[in-house]
């Protein structure tokens, strides 16, 4: 088993955080993982992306050329990384911000992550909503493992724990928009 993920979107959407949570949860469940962030001016609001590889075997290259799963949080990311998803792969996109196109041999799942985050009171948790959807669609880690990761991440700001957990669960349970 080896799954190559690309997480992509705007800087500030929590793209790198999303990759970290998934990588860390998979590691907790005994997988080999690598997490490779893009690290440039993204932090200040450009585009951000992260590659995560989860495998039963030690990971040779953390640098990937094609992905099995793309999580696209904005249109430019969908356009840039969508064509690099392998046949049989999966694209999960934020339907609040991305207009998806027909794509043969790739399953596409949209979720209104940003809109749901807004309903919860803070659009910044859109990445947490997306994480919920990612683990439901891919089974890469259990919901409970991710919950523990989120609790650990927010340990220093406990007032944020409940909101982030709720966001993950909303993403996990939301009815899917599939094409």
């Amino acid at each position: 088993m080896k799954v190559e993920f690309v997480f992509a979107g705007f800087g500030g959407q929590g793209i790198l955080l999303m990759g970290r949570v998934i990588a860390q949860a998979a590691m907790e469940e005994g997988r080999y993982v690598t997490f490779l962030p893009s690290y440039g001016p993204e932090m200040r609001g450009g585009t951000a992306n992260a590659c995560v590889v989860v495998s039963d075997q030690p990971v040779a290259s953390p640098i990937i050329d094609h992905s099995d799963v793309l999580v696209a949080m904005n249109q430019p990311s969908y356009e840039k990384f969508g064509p690099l998803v392998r046949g049989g792969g999966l694209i999960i996109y934020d339907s609040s911000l991305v207009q998806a196109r027909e794509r043969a041999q790739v399953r596409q799942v949209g979720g209104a992550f940003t809109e749901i985050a807004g309903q919860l009171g803070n659009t910044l948790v859109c990445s947490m909503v997306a994480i919920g959807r990612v683990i439901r669609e891919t089974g890469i880690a259990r919901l409970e493992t991710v919950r523990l990761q989120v609790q650990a991440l927010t340990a220093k700001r406990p007032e944020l724990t409940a909101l982030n957990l709720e966001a993950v669960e909303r993403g996990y349970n939301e009815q899917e928009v599939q094409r």
Partner: protein
Amino acid sequence: MAGNHALAEGAIQAGCDAYFGYPITPQNEIPEYMAARMPEEGRVFVQSESELAAISMVMGAAVTGKRAMTTSSSPGISLMQEGISYLCGCELPAVIANVVRGGPGLGNIAAAQSDYFQAVKGGGHGDYHLFVLAPASVQEMFDFAFWAFDLAFKYRNPVMILTDGLIGQMMEPLTIREPSWPRATPVSFDARDWALTGAAGRPPRSFKSLFLGDGVLEAHNAKLQAKYARAAATEVRYETVATEDAQLLLVAYGIMARVCRETVDRLRARGIKAGLLRPLTLWPFPTAWLAAHAAQFAHILVVELSCGQMVEDVQLAVQARTPVSFYGRAGGGIVTCQELTAVAIERLGIKETS
């Protein structure tokens, strides 16, 4: 844990007494981590006013027999070259990490391997060598910190950990433990018989790299060269993958070795027998292994994130026994497995029908 944090924690666990550094991307996580952790351990952290000051502070700590370290990235390492030459001339132990970014000049902040020449051929003035270690994973960033201090004290010579922005920024699982490989014999960090510790009850000592007396510098250089020859004979470390039956040998270090490792699998899946040589020490270089094995390969392909630097050391070792070619990108481009697989097939002159 991220590579830069792993290197910093590795240095702390390896007994680093004092860290001096000046910020530069993509290694800022190291001084940031050290700023928090070194005081916790009751050790020294100083953010210096410049790279020149940082390397001079390293020298100041080193003369007292302490385990001193600095880190920077390419332009900052260039500024440190004078101090590095002095450390070698004075025979002082120190660990310097270069988290390489694109050059020349200020270049950019993308990962690169374009400081190879500077690291392994000297960089500063005079006849000297640094030990140059090339980690390829987050675990090795941690482990090699121990190895670096070992070598620095065993030979009383600076050691450079040559890494890049990708390894510095990427996260992988890390096991915190005292590593055994690739370290050699246990090394004593007891510096009482050479360091400046206060001369009460013993003759005074001094460290200098200025030798004006007739023949004195020549003798000093002969002594240094004998030390480098001893090190070259005993400290070379490398890793090979599937080289026994390989027709194509890939040679790469650091992050590019990870890409090459996967490319070996992809090529073999297509029936092309590929293997990999990954130097862990760039100085001393695995020249002897290449000289002994070169003739068994049809082609040797050196892959770097530069315009071609280590390829020269491979060519020197191979001595035209086998065709050697180079593939690389510099300035921000990353070589992917897909790209490299196509290049390897083209270099072997294989016509694939698909």
